[in-house]
């Protein structure tokens, strides 16, 4: 029934792509956490942290949900979704820091 190419190639590779993605997600999470721990703040730091978050969510959409293998509008649902809170949050933080 399912004709899609696998998200992950079965055991042929030494390390599965999804495992690499998982590693990236963990590292970015630790970076975000360290920024919080260091008490860093301000517009640009916040936007950097937000950027990490959007990128991470995008990785989950592409690699874990498997949207990267889809064509058409559904390929982009997560990207489109992320753009909404992403831009609104950016706007709101720009307000509070700039205005």
């Amino acid at each position, binding site marked *: 029934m399912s004709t899609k190419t696998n*998200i*992950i190639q079965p055991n042929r590779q030494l390390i599965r792509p999804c495992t690499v993605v998982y590693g990236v997600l963990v590292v970015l*999470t630790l970076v975000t*956490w360290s*920024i919080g721990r260091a008490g860093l703040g301000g517009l640009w730091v916040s936007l950097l942290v*937000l950027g990490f*978050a959007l990128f991470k969510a995008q990785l*989950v959409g592409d690699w874990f*949900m498997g*949207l990267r293998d889809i064509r058409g509008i559904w390929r982009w649902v997560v990207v489109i979704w992320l753009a909404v809170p992403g831009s609104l949050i950016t706007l709101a933080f720009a307000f509070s820091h700039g205005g």
Partner: protein
Amino acid sequence: MRGILMDTVVRHEQARPGYPPGDLAIWIFILAELLVFAIFFAAYAFARSGQAELFNHYQATLNRDTALFNTLALLTSSYFVVRGVVAAREGNNALCARWLWAAVAMGGLFLVIKASEYADHFAAGVSLSSNTFYMFYLSLTFFHFMHVILGMVILAAVAVKAGRDGYSPDDHTGVETGASYWHMVDMVWLILFPLVYVMR
């Protein structure tokens, strides 16, 4: 079987599918859920811009370390789910069930950690009416908390079916349906964590 509109689409064997993995109905549901969270996030950000001092002050009272562990728990569970889907696709139901149960366990860990955080807050007398920051913090995390529970129920149901050898390489839409929902729960937390715990 695959989705509501599937039969209207002519699918070529080689072509990349035009629909995401899992039942299309769950994706309509996921979209609606994502919309709620997006609105909630934006509301948080705009409410914050009016009271940045207050938000920064109370944000500092949250436990960022437990939130880190919770993020790792969800990421790991999502990873397990991916492996479960691979196993189902390769026809290995027993392995699929094991990965999914491991994912459910990670979800359980999330719930325990989060519940202990709540216990601390309530012991400190924090409530929805304390201030706007706590209102958002409690609302957002609790709404997400409920989604973790729902996601675990779905994953458990799929795991049980996999345990009974209920899927095959040709027909494992159920696994993908549960997986898609769970990844959504994870993905939302990936935004929630920095927004509420870190960004200031």
